[in-house]
C-alpha cells in the first residue's frame, strides 16, 4: 500500500546520534536493545531514527541521558529528509521489519489453529495464544506507520483465539461427561 504524499509530508523524525566508549560493552548493548525494542531504524552506526511523537521523544530523551551517564555523547535532533521520496522510502524501511513480524504471527496463529484441530492440550494452547497476543501488542506499539499486514495478523489472531476458546470449552464439557 502506497503512502500518500500529504501523509508523508506531515511526518517529522527524531534522530539520536550517539557515541559510547567501546568498553564496557554492556552500555552499547543496552542502548542498541532499547532502540530495537522501540523499532528505531539505524541510519548508520550510532545514528538511529524514529518518527516524532510524544512517546518516542520521551524515550529518546531518556536514552540520550543514559548514554551520557555511561560516559558517552548523545545529541537528539528533529529532522526532515530533503525530498518526499526519501521520506517515503524511510517509511517503507520502517514497515519492513513489522511486515515480517506480522507474517510470522499469522503463521504462528495458523499453526495454533491446526493444533486445536488435532486435539492438543488446552492449557498449552492458551499459553501459546497468550504469547502470540503479547508479541502482537509489542509489534503494534512500534508499528508507527500501520503496516498493511497488521489487519491480517489481527484477524488471524482473533480467529485463533476463537478456535482455542471453543476447543477449551469442548474439553471441559467432555471432562464433565
Amino acid at each position, binding site marked *: 500500500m502506497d503512502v500518500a504524499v500529504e501523509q508523508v509530508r506531515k511526518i517529522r523524525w527524531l534522530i539520536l546520534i550517539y557515541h559510547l566508549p567501546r568498553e564496557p560493552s554492556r552500555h552499547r548493548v543496552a542502548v542498541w536493545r*532499547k532502540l530495537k*525494542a*522501540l523499532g528505531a531504524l539505524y541510519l548508520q552506526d550510532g545514528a538511529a531514527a524514529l518518527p516524532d511523537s*510524544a*512517546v518516542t521523544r520521551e*524515550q529518546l*530523551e*531518556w536514552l*540520550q*541521558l*543514559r548514554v*551520557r*551517564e555511561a560516559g558517552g555523547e548523545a545529541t537528539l535532533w528533529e529532522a526532515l529528509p530533503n525530498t518526499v521520496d526519501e521520506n517515503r522510502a524511510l517509511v517503507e524501511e520502517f514497515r519492513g521489519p513489522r511486515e515480517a513480524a506480522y507474517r510470522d504471527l499469522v503463521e504462528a496463529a495458523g499453526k495454533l489453529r491446526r493444533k486445536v484441530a488435532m486435539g492438543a492440550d488446552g492449557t498449552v494452547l492458551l499459553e501459546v495464544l497468550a504469547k502470540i497476543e503479547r508479541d502482537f*501488542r509489542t509489534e503494534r*506499539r512500534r508499528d508507527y506507520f500501520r503496516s498493511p499486514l497488521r489487519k491480517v495478523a489481527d484477524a488471524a489472531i482473533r480467529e485463533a483465539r476463537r478456535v482455542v476458546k471453543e476447543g477449551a470449552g469442548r474439553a471441559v464439557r467432555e471432562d464433565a461427561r
Partner: protein
Amino acid sequence: MDRTACIWLIRRHIDPDAEFSFFGDASEAPEGAELFDVAGARLSHRGEDCSFETILEEYDLDDLVLREISEIVHDADLMDDRYGRPESDGLDAVIRGMQLTLPDDEALTLLTDAIFDGLYAYLRRETL
C-alpha cells in the same frame, strides 16, 4: 505516566503542601524549583529505574502497595516489560488520552491523583 504518578506520590506520601509548576523546557523553571523527571535532576531516571522508583528509594518509602505501583509505572514508562504488569498499557493509554482532552496539567493531575488513589486502594485491598 511517570510524571503524573510522581506528583501523586509527592502529594500523598511526601509533602501534601507541595506546589507544582508546569513548563515546556527546563530553562523556563521558576527560581528555587526542584526539577524532577527531567535529565540531570536529583529525582529522575537512575540507571534502569524510572523517576517514581527513584523517589521511593530516595525517601525510603517502604510500602508494598507503592512498590507495586512503581512496577506498573516502570513498565509504562520504560516500555521494557520488566515486571510484566498488565495494568501498564491500559493506564498509560488513559493518561495519554487525558493529556489530549484536558485543558492543562493542573486539571490533568487532579484527575490522575484520583486514578492513583483508586489504584492504591485497589492494590491495597489485594495486598493486605
